C-alpha cells in the first residue's frame, strides 16, 4: 500500500499524475466498462406519465445544451492552454463532454424524441443560452483564466450540482447515466477550481476582472437553477437553495462575491 499511497506524492508528481491520459484511462475503466451509452445494459425503462415525460425531456434537452457548450469550450481552449499537461487534461475533458452529449441525445431518442436537436431548440432555457454565448466569447478571446472560470468552475459546478440533485429521484436509466457523468464532472470542476485558485495566488490582480465575470454570469446560473428546480419538481424554497448551495460554496472558496 505504501508504494501507491497518493498522499506521499510530491505536489509536482501529483499534478503530473492526475492530469495525464494514463490516469483518465485507468479511472474511467472503473465505471464505464460494460456500459452502453452511459448505463448498465440490463436496465429497462419505466413507464412515465405524460407530465413526467415532458419534464424529463425538457431537463435532458437543457443538459444537451450545457454539454455541447462544454464540448465546444473545452476543445476550443486546448489551443491556448498554458502548458502541455493542461492541454492533455482538457483533451480528456473533450471526450468526457462529447460522451455526455452523446448519451443524453441517445436518452432523448430512447424517450421517443424523433428529432433531438429540434426538440432541444424548442425547449432551451434562455438563461443557459446566454451563458453559453458569453462562455464561447471568452474562449474566442483566448482568455484562459476567464474561460476556465466560466467553463470549469461555473458551468461544471452548475452541472455537478444539478445532476447530483436529480440522481436520487431519477428513473433507473437516467440515474445510471447521471452517476457516471457526475464522476467525470468531479475531475472537471476540480481542475478548474485548482487551476484558477493557483493562478489567483500567483497573479492576484486577475481577481478584479474575474469578479466582473462572476457578477455577470451568476444571475444567469441562478436563473437556470430556478428553472431547473421547477422542471425537476423541486418546488420548495429550501430545496431550491440546496440546489445552488454547492455552486455558491465553490464561488466563495475562490474568494468571489456571490
Amino acid at each position, binding site marked *: *500500500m505504501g508504494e501507491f499511497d497518493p*498522499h506521499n506524492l510530491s505536489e509536482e508528481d501529483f499534478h503530473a499524475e492526475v*492530469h495525464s491520459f494514463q490516469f483518465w484511462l485507468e479511472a474511467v475503466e472503473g465505471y464505464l466498462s460494460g456500459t452502453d451509452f452511459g448505463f448498465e445494459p440490463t436496465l429497462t425503462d419505466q413507464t412515465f406519465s405524460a407530465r413526467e415525460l415532458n419534464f424529463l425531456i425538457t431537463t435532458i434537452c437543457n443538459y444537451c445544451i450545457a454539454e455541447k457548450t462544454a464540448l465546444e469550450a473545452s476543445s476550443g481552449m486546448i489551443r491556448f492552454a498554458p502548458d502541455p499537461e493542461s492541454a492533455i487534461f482538457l483533451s480528456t475533458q473533450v471526450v468526457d463532454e462529447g460522451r455526455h452529449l452523446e448519451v443524453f441525445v441517445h436518452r432523448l431518442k430512447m424517450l421517443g424524441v424523433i428529432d433531438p436537436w429540434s426538440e432541444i431548440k424548442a425547449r432551451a432555457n434562455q438563461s443557459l443560452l446566454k451563458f453559453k454565448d458569453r462562455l464561447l466569447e471568452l474562449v474566442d478571446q483566448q482568455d484562459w483564466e476567464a474561460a476556465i472560470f466560466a467553463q470549469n468552475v461555473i458551468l461544471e459546478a452548475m452541472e455537478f450540482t444539478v445532476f447530483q440533485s436529480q440522481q436520487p429521484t431519477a428513473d433507473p436509466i437516467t440515474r445510471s447515466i447521471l452517476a457516471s457523468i457526475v464522476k467525470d464532472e468531479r*475531475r472537471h470542476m476540480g*481542475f478548474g477550481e485548482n487551476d484558477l485558485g493557483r493562478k489567483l495566488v500567483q497573479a492576484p490582480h486577475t481577481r478584479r476582472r474575474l469578479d466582473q465575470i462572476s457578477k455577470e454570469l451568476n444571475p444567469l446560473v441562478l436563473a437556470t437553477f430556478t428553472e431547473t428546480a421547477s422542471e425537476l419538481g423541486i418546488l420548495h424554497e429550501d430545496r431550491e437553495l440546496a440546489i445552488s448551495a454547492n455552486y455558491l460554496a465553490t464561488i466563495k472558496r475562490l474568494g468571489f462575491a456571490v
Partner: protein
Amino acid sequence: MNDPLEVIAGRDQRKRYTLGETGFNEVPKKYRKFYRKWSGQNDKLAPNEVLCPVCLVVIRSARELRPGDRVYCMPCMSRLVVAMEDGMLLAKVVY
C-alpha cells in the same frame, strides 16, 4: 505541514490503518482504497478520514490524520490541508 519522515520512522505515535476496498471506482485501481463515497450529514468520519469540500468524496489515509497534514483528493485533483475547526477535523483546499 507535518514531516512525512516522522511517519516512516514511526516516531509520530499515530494509529495506523489497513485500508480495504470501498467500492469506489472513480480513480485508477491502485488508489481506490484511499477514497469512498460520502453518505451525507449522518456519515461519521473515522480519525483517518476527511471530507473533500470540492467534490464531497471522503479521503482516507493509512494513518490517523492531524491538523497540518497534507492530503490529496484524486477524484477532483485537489490538494488539501487538514485543519481542526469546532473540534472537528476538516480539509481545506490549498491552491
